[in-house]
C-alpha cells in the first residue's frame, strides 16, 4: 500500500505539472482541446491525492510499522479513531492532508465551473495547479509520508525493517477536538486559495464586470467560516487540555491562524463596496492576495521553527521552500497588478464621509491595523534579535494591551456600520437611527456599572455589546414589523421570513450578533479568579460560591494510558451540584504525560479544575481551580457566527423564486405602500 500511495502522489505531481504548464500554453494559444485536457489533468491530480491520502490512513489503521511516519505517530494500543487522525499529527502527514483539502476545493471549482466563465477558468485552473504543484513538490520530495525504515545491513547494503510497535501519538493530540480542529483550520487556510486564484485570474484575464467578485465572495465566506470554526475549536482544545485556565494565549501559531481571518473579514466587508458602488477594486484584489500570503506565512511560521511555539512542528529546512514559494507568489501578484492596474479603476466617488462606505473603510483600517500589530508582535523576537542581538519575547500581556482597544473600536464600528446609509446619511437619519441604540447601549453600560463592573475595558465592552445588539435588534424589528403588517404572521415567523428574503443581509446580522456574544465572553476574562492549593483527601478548597471537596484519589488503567485522577465533589451554597474528575494521564508509549481538565460549565461561569500534581515533599495532591466567568458565551457565540455564515451563503428566497421562474413580488410599490409613515426604509448591511 505504501508503494501504491507513493506512486499515486508522484503521479499527482506529474498531472499538476501538466495542468500548470499546459494551462499556461492553453492561455497563450487558446486551443479548446488543450484547455479541456489541462482541466482534466487537474481533476486527475485531485483524485490521485485522494488515493495517496487514503493509503496513508490505511497504513496507520493496519499498524504498518515499516513506515517511518506511522512509527513516529502511532502505536498498536492507540484507538482506531486516533489512528485515522494521526494522519495530520506530524509534518509530513499534515502537509499531505493540506494537499488533500486543497484538492477537494480544486476539484469542486473545476467541476462546478467546467462549462462556465470560459474566459476566466483557464487562468483559475492554472493558478490552482501552480499552488497544488508546490504542495505536491513538498509532499513528494521534501517531506514524504511514505518513507520506510531502513538501516545498513551486515553486508553494508540497505536493509528494510519494521518495528514491533510505534512511539505513539503525542499526548495532547489524543483528544476528540483534535480530530476536528486541524481539518477545519486547514480547510480555512486552503480555502483562501480559491478567492486568490479567482482574483489573480480576473486581473490577468482583465475579466469584465464584477462576476469574479461574486464568485470570490462565496468561496471566501466558506473559507472564513472554516477558519472561524478552526480557531474556536483550537481555543476550546487549549482550554480543555492544556490546563492553564485560558483559551487564547497569543501563541505564534494561534496568531498565524488569526492573521488571514482578520484580512478575510476585512475583504468580506470591503467587497460590498465593489459590488454596490464599483469602488475599492485595487484594495479588494490586494486584500485577497494578502490573505493568501498570510496563509502561506502562517504555514511557514508553524513549520520552520522561525518562532518558538507549543504548536510548532519539528524544526526543518521546509521553511526555505515556503519562503521561496511566497516570494514567487508576491512577484507574480505584483507583476499582474502593475501590468493590468488600469483594469481596477474605481467607477465611483465617495459622496459623504458620513456613509456606509466610510464605515467600511474604517472597519478595514482597524482590521488591518490589528493584523499588522499581531504580525509584528509575533515576529518582534526575530526583529529584536536581528537589530540588537538579543531576543526580546512578546507574550500575551502585550497582545492584550494592543488588541483590546482595537477590538472595542471594531465592535463600535460593527454597530455603527449598519446604521449608516450608502452614499450619504442625513442628520435626521443619524438622529433617528442612533437614538435608541445609544440609549440601550448606555443603559447596558450603566447596568454593568451598577452590577459592580469597574474594569474600564470590560465596562466599555458591555456598553458596546448592548449597543451593537440593539442595532441588530432594531433592524430585525423594523423589517419584521413590515412583514407582519403585510402577512399577519407572528413576530418569530416574520423574523424568519425576513431573514430568508435577504439571507446575505440578515445572515450578516446573525454573524454580528455571534461576535457580540464572543465579546461578552472575552470581557468575562477580566474577572477570572484562581486558587492553587495542596489538598489532602477529605480537604476542601473554596472559590467564589463553590466549595470543592476532595473525596478520593484513584487510578484508572486505559489501553493507551494510565490516569491518576481526583474525585472532587462540587458544592454550591452547601448543596452538591456535581462530581468532577480532573486527571493527569501518563502515556507509556511516548513517555509523555498530559492533563485532562474537569470543567463545570454554566452560562454564568466555568468552574475549571486542574489536577496540578503531587507535592513531592508532603505527598499531597495539588489542585488548581479557576473561576472563569462567561466563557460559554464564547463557544455559543461561535455557533451563532457559523449559523449566520451558513444563512448568508443560502440563496435569498426572492432570488430562488426568480430562478425557478416564479413571479418575483414587486418590491418598491407593494413594499412601500404597506409601510407605515413612521417606519423609514433604509439600506441595510448586506
Amino acid at each position: 500500500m505504501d508503494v501504491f500511495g507513493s506512486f499515486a502522489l508522484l503521479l499527482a505531481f506529474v498531472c499538476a505539472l501538466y495542468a500548470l504548464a499546459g494551462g499556461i500554453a492553453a492561455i497563450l494559444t487558446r486551443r479548446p482541446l488543450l484547455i479541456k485536457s489541462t482541466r482534466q489533468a487537474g481533476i486527475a491530480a485531485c483524485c490521485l491525492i485522494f488515493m495517496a491520502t487514503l493509503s496513508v490512513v490505511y497504513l496507520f489503521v493496519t499498524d504498518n510499522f515499516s513506515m517511518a511516519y506511522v512509527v513516529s505517530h502511532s502505536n498498536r494500543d492507540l484507538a482506531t479513531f486516533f489512528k485515522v487522525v494521526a494522519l495530520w499529527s506530524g509534518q509530513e502527514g499534515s502537509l499531505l492532508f493540506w494537499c488533500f483539502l486543497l484538492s477537494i476545493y480544486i476539484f469542486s471549482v473545476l467541476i462546478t465551473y467546467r462549462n462556465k466563465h470560459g474566459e476566466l477558468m483557464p487562468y483559475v485552473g492554472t493558478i490552482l495547479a501552480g499552488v497544488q504543484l508546490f504542495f505536491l513538490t513538498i509532499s513528494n520530495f521534501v517531506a514524504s509520508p511514505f518513507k520506510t525504515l531502513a538501516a545498513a545491513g551486515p553486508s553494508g547494503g540497505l536493509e528494510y525493517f519494521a518495528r514491533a510497535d510505534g512511539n505513539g501519538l503525542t499526548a495532547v493530540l489524543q483528544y476528540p477536538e483534535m480530530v476536528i480542529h486541524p481539518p477545519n483550520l486547514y480547510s480555512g487556510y486552503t480555502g483562501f486559495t480559491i478567492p486568490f486564484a479567482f482574483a489573480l485570474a480576473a486581473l490577468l484575464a482583465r475579466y469584465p464586470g464584477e462576476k469574479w467578485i461574486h464568485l470570490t465572495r462565496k468561496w471566501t465566506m466558506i473559507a472564513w467560516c472554516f477558519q472561524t470554526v478552526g480557531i474556536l475549536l483550537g481555543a476550546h482544545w487549549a482550554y480543555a487540555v492544556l490546563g492553564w485556565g485560558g483559551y487564547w494565549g497569543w501563541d505564534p501559531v494561534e496568531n498565524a491562524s488569526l492573521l488571514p481571518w482578520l484580512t478575510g473579514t476585512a475583504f468580506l466587508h470591503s467587497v460590498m463596496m465593489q459590488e454596490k458602488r464599483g469602488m475599492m477594486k485595487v484594495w479588494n484584489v490586494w486584500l485577497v492576495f494578502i490573505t493568501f500570503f498570510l496563509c502561506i506565512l502562517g504555514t511557514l511560521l508553524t513549520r520552520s521553527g522561525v518562532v518558538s511555539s507549543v504548536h510548532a512542528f519539528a524544526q526543518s529546512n521546509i521553511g526555505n521552500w515556503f519562503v521561496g514559494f511566497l516570494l514567487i507568489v508576491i512577484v507574480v501578484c505584483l507583476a499582474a497588478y502593475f501590468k493590468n492596474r488600469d483594469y481596477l479603476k474605481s467607477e465611483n466617488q465617495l459622496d459623504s464621509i458620513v456613509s456606509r462606505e466610510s464605515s467600511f473603510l474604517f472597519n478595514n483600517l482597524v482590521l488591518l491595523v490589528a493584523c499588522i500589530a499581531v504580525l509584528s508582535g509575533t515576529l518582534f523576537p526575530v526583529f529584536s534579535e536581528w537589530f540588537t542581538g538579543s531576543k526580546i519575547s512578546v507574550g500575551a500581556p502585550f497582545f492584550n494591551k494592543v488588541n483590546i482597544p482595537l477590538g472595542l473600536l471594531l465592535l463600535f464600528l460593527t454597530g455603527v456600520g449598519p446604521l449608516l446609509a450608502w452614499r450619504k446619511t442625513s442628520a435626521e437619519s443619524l438622529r433617528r437611527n442612533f437614538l435608541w441604540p445609544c440609549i440601550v447601549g448606555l443603559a447596558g453600560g450603566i447596568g454593568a456599572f451598577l452590577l459592580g463592573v469597574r474594569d474600564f475595558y470590560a465596562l466599555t465592552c458591555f456598553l458596546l455589546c448592548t449597543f451593537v445588539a440593539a442595532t441588530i435588534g432594531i433592524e430585525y424589528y423594523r423589517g419584521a414589523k413590515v412583514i407582519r403588517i403585510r402577512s399577519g404572521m407572528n413576530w418569530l415567523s416574520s423574523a424568519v421570513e425576513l431573514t430568508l428574503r435577504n439571507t446575505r443581509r440578515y445572515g450578516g446580522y446573525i454573524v454580528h450578533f455571534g461576535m457580540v456574544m464572543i465579546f461578552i465572553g472575552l470581557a468575562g476574562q477580566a474577572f477570572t479568579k484562581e486558587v492553587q492549593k495542596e489538598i489532602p483527601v477529605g480537604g476542601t478548597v473554596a472559590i467564589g460560591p463553590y466549595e470543592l471537596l476532595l473525596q478520593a484519589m484513584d487510578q484508572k488503567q486505559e489501553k493507551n494510558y494510565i490516569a491518576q485522577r481526583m474525585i472532587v465533589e462540587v458544592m454550591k451554597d452547601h448543596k452538591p451540584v456535581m462530581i468532577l474528575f480532573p486527571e493527569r494521564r501518563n502515556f507509556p508509549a511516548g513517555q509523555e504525560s498530559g492533563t485532562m481538565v474537569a470543567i463545570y460549565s454554566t452560562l454564568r461561569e466555568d468552574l475549571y479544575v486542574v489536577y496540578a500534581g503531587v507535592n513531592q515533599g508532603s505527598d499531597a495532591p495539588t489542585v488548581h481551580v479557576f473561576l472563569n466567568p462567561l466563557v460559554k458565551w464564547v463557544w455559543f457565540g461561535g455557533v451563532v457566527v457559523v449559523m449566520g455564515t451558513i444563512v448568508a451563503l443560502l440563496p435569498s428566497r426572492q432570488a430562488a423564486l426568480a430562478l425557478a421562474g416564479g413571479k418575483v413580488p414587486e418590491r418598491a410599490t407593494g413594499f412601500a405602500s404597506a409601510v407605515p409613515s413612521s417606519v423609514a426604509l433604509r439600506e441595510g448591511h448586506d
Partner: protein
Amino acid sequence: MTRARRRLTIAFALAIAAAPAAVVRVQAEIDHAHELGKQIKCSCGGCEQSAGTCYHVGGAFSGPCDLAKTMIKEIQGHLDERMTDKQVIAAMIKEYGPAAYMEPPKEGFGLVAWLMPGLYLVAGAALVIFVISKWRKRGAAAETAVGSSKTVSPEMLERARLLAQKATEE
C-alpha cells in the same frame, strides 16, 4: 414610538444588560510569587506561557512544568529578601535575559513594539482620510462636469440607472 416597540427595546436592553450580572468581583487568592510569575516567561522553551501559568505538557508528571516551579521558587526567594515587585522582575530578567519578558520593556528597542501599533493606526487613519477627501473632490468635480454639460448621453443615463439599481437593491 409605539408601546410595543418601546417594550421590545426595553426587554432587549435588559436581556443584554443581564449578561454582566454573571460576573463576580473577586480577589486574587493565588500567592504573590505566582502573580509575579505571570510577568516572567517560563524558560522551558516549549510554550509561550509565563512561569506563573506554565502547565507545559511534557513537564514532570508530578506537577506543572519543573522549570516554572524553579522560577517561582526563585521569585519567592527574592520576595523573602524583601525586594519590591519591580526589583524582583529586574532580577529575573537579569538572570534569564530579555527572552524572559512577557511584554517588551518600554525602553530601548522594546519601545518600538509598543509604538508600532499606534503608528499603524495613525498612519492608516491619515491614509483613509486622505483617500476619502480625494474621492470626495473627484466626486464634486464629476458633478460639476455633468452639471455644465447640456445633454446627458444614453450611455451615461444607462450607467446611472445601473448604479442606482445597485445602490437600492436589497
